Each structure stands twice: as C-alpha cells, then as structure tokens.
C-alpha cells in the first residue's frame, strides 16, 4: 500500500515542489485587493481615489526596485534570488498597469481630452507613461519561449528596465511637491541598485 501511494503521488509532489513559487503571484496581488477592499469600506480616507492611485504607483515602484536589486544582491552577498526577477518584474508591470487604469478611469473618468493633454504636455505624466510602455515588451517576453527565441537579443531587450526605472523614479519624484522623507529613501534605493552595477566586486577571489 505505501509503495503504491508513493508511486501515484510522487509525480504530483514533484510538480508541486518544482512550481510551488506560483503562490507568490496571488500573494503579490494582495496589496491591490487590500486597497480595493479598503476603498470600498471607507478606509482610504477623505480622498480615496488619490490614495488608491498613488498607492498602486508606489507598489509598482517598490516591486521594480526589488526586481532591480536581485542582481546586485547576488553579486555582493552571494544570495541568489535571481529566479524571482520574473515574478517581481511582472508584478511591477501589473501594478503600473493598475496605476494607469486608476488614473485614467477612476480619477479622470476616461475623459480623453484631459488625458490627451496630460500625455502630450506634462513631463510628469510623460515620464510615467514612457516607463510603463517600456515594461510592456518585457512583460510580453518574460517567458522561457521568448528567451529561447530571442537568445542574446533577449538580454539587450530586457536592459530596457534601466531607462524604465530611471523614468519611473523621476515620475515618482515629481509626484510630490518637494523632496521629502517619504520619497528620498526610495530615490536613494533606486540610485544604489542602479549604480551598484558599476562598483567593483570586493571579494577575495577577484584578487587572483
């Protein structure tokens, strides 16, 4: 009996063991669901649309920062979490898309004339929108099939994340009237994850 059971369950078990990380996708969506729940229950305060919109944008930026931090993290600490780059990158794109939807739909009721003026005249909006558009091809080619298909060009294409992050950072900075203790740490984090790529790696092995 135990032997039979093992034979039936082990392929399933192996599959689960291999792909258990998919739980992070629904988990990554909980902040969005939580914000919607709060919004419907009056917990987002006096200006709920604004808080909702800004919170989604902030989550997008946070996830983008985590995604960008994984490579330097391995380089400087040896901790390899590169397998989470796709997850965090896709979630960042998901939140950025919701952020755009909240801005266009909830905030402006899809008033195209207002949105058109924003997109064509205001650097604040242009920077944010460009960052989101740069993430679209990255999300589209985040699968193994595209990786194999594009080979070396895949890496080149995905280096779009750097200009996207810089533009998102400027957009984030401009969303406040002045620099402040909320925005400064995020901007510092962005500078660190971007600039750390140019730092030499200080490890004993590299002295050879």
């Amino acid at each position, binding site marked *: 009996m135990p032997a039979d059971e093992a034979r039936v369950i082990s392929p399933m078990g192996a599959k689960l063991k291999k792909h258990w990380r998919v739980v992070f996708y629904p988990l990554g969506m909980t902040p969005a669901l939580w914000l*919607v729940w*709060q*919004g419907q229950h009056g917990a987002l*305060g006096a*200006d*709920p*649309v604004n808080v909702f919109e800004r919170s989604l944008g902030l989550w997008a930026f946070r996830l983008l920062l985590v995604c960008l931090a994984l490579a330097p993290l391995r380089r400087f600490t040896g901790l390899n979490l590169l397998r989470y780059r796709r997850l965090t990158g896709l979630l960042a794109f998901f939140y950025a898309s919701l952020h755009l939807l909240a801005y266009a739909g909830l905030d402006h*009721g899809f008033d195209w004339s207002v949105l058109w003026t924003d997109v064509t005249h205001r650097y604040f909006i242009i920077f944010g929108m460009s960052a989101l558009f740069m993430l679209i091809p990255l999300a589209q080619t985040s699968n193994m099939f595209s990786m194999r298909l594009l080979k070396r060009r895949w890496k080149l294409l995905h280096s779009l994340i750097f200009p996207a992050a810089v533009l998102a950072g400027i957009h984030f900075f401009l969303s406040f009237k*002045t620099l402040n203790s909320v925005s400064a740490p995020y901007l510092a984090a962005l500078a660190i994850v971007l600039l750390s790529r140019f730092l030499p790696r200080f490890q004993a092995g590299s002295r050879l």
Partner: protein
Amino acid sequence: AAALQTHSGPYSGSLTPTPHDDVTHYNNFYEFGMDKGDPAAHSQDFHPLPWTLEITGLVRKPVRLDIDQLLHSPAIEERIYRMRCVEAWSMVIPWDGIPLASLLKDADPDPKATHVAFESVLRPSEMPGQNEGLSGIQWPYVEGLRLDEAMNPLTLLALGIYGETLPNQNGAPIRLVVPWKYGFKGIKSIQRIRLLDHEPPTTWNRLASDEYGFYANVNPQVDHPRWSQATERVIGSHSLFGATRQPTLMFNGYGEQVADLYRGMDLRKNF
C-alpha cells in the same frame, strides 16, 4: 476646541459643508508633516495660546492684538466658503472669523501701502515639519496679498471652524482665508501682518515659481504644469468607486465679488 460666539454672515449661499472629520483630518500644513493626516496626528504639542498678532509696517497705528480679545470679539461671523486646493481637490468649510479689512482699517494704512505680507510662526520644537531639511522650504511660511485683495469683504481672518476655535491642524489660533484663491494662500498660525509698498515673497512661489504664482487665483483655464485645473475631486465621499469630480469655477465661484480686482490683467501671466 472651545465654542465660539458667532453669528451668520453673508456669502454662505446654499453650500453643504464637508464633514467636520474630513475638514480636520485632511490638511496641508507642512509644518506638521507632508502627509494629509500628519497635521492632525502631529500637532498636539503646538500651543496656540497665549498669542499676539501684530499689524505693522506702513500703518499709522501699529496694532498688537491679544488673541483672547479677538476670540471674544462680537465681530466674529460665520462664512461658508468653497476651498479649492491647488492639488485639484475641494471642500466646503464653515469658517468663523473677522473680515481682514476691519482689522486693517483699525491700523490705518498709510497711502503708500500697496501690499500686505503675512508671516506664520517659527517653532521647530513644536512643529516637527520645520525640522525636515529635505524639502527646501524656508520657514516661517510667508504669504502675501495686494492691499485691495486684502480689503475685499470676502477676505477673512478665521479664528474657528464649525462654531469652535480652530484645531491646531487647521491653523490655530488665527489664519487667513481667501476663498477665490488656491488654499496655499491661506497662511496658518499668523503672527505678523505687515503693510508694504511692494509685492512680498511667498513661500511656494519661492520654491517653484513656475507652479505657484503670487496671485494663485482659482482658474480652470490655467493648468498647473503637472495637472489640469479644469475639474476638482470633491472631498468627503469616502467611497473609491463613488467619488465625484466637478468642474472648477472661475475665481472658485466668487467672480462676482472679485473679478474687478483683475480687470485688464493677463491671468495666464499673473497666475
């Protein structure tokens, strides 16, 4: 907040006030922090009493007013005004206050005076936001009006809201209310009023002159560089999917009373 002796004044119209809780918990008062909830959360150490308000500069009779006297003045009246923030949201607030013009007249302005400068309080020990070095804001907060704007009957020095003395987060003990201008002109916790013969510097204009002009009149046709000013989010719905936007009115709906002040001026230039 203590109860104020107040009576109904003109200019109330048929406006429905924003809920008290929103008026007192959704504030821009950077001296207490930049988040809208910061002023209510971080202003409990601020002491608005005792307080003296000075009216000096180009006046024949400089005045030093004890706030206690003002708080018991029979001249306090209720004015229900629209409040339009430059950030494209709006409220309706029942203020209790004294028209600025009556206090200025008591000081007897010199004929050379053309402008009025206002100065807020500098108390980093009681106002945590004044210790924040990143913002680049120079404290104390300063604002200004042209003398004729200051003398307009709509311009109010508010001592209370909702029939009670001002909560700290709303600018206790005395603040300016200029309902046809963006909210940031309404300088809070005023200590000094000076009459001048030139336009005084103002805090936000000093920081970003392309975004915040000296006049800062509510104008749906002149956009902020980062967003349209044609419409505004109405504060108070508390519902994410039931929130409303409404068209912004020229001079915030007070054109009849103030449009004459700007006759012949290019309001795109003098924004």
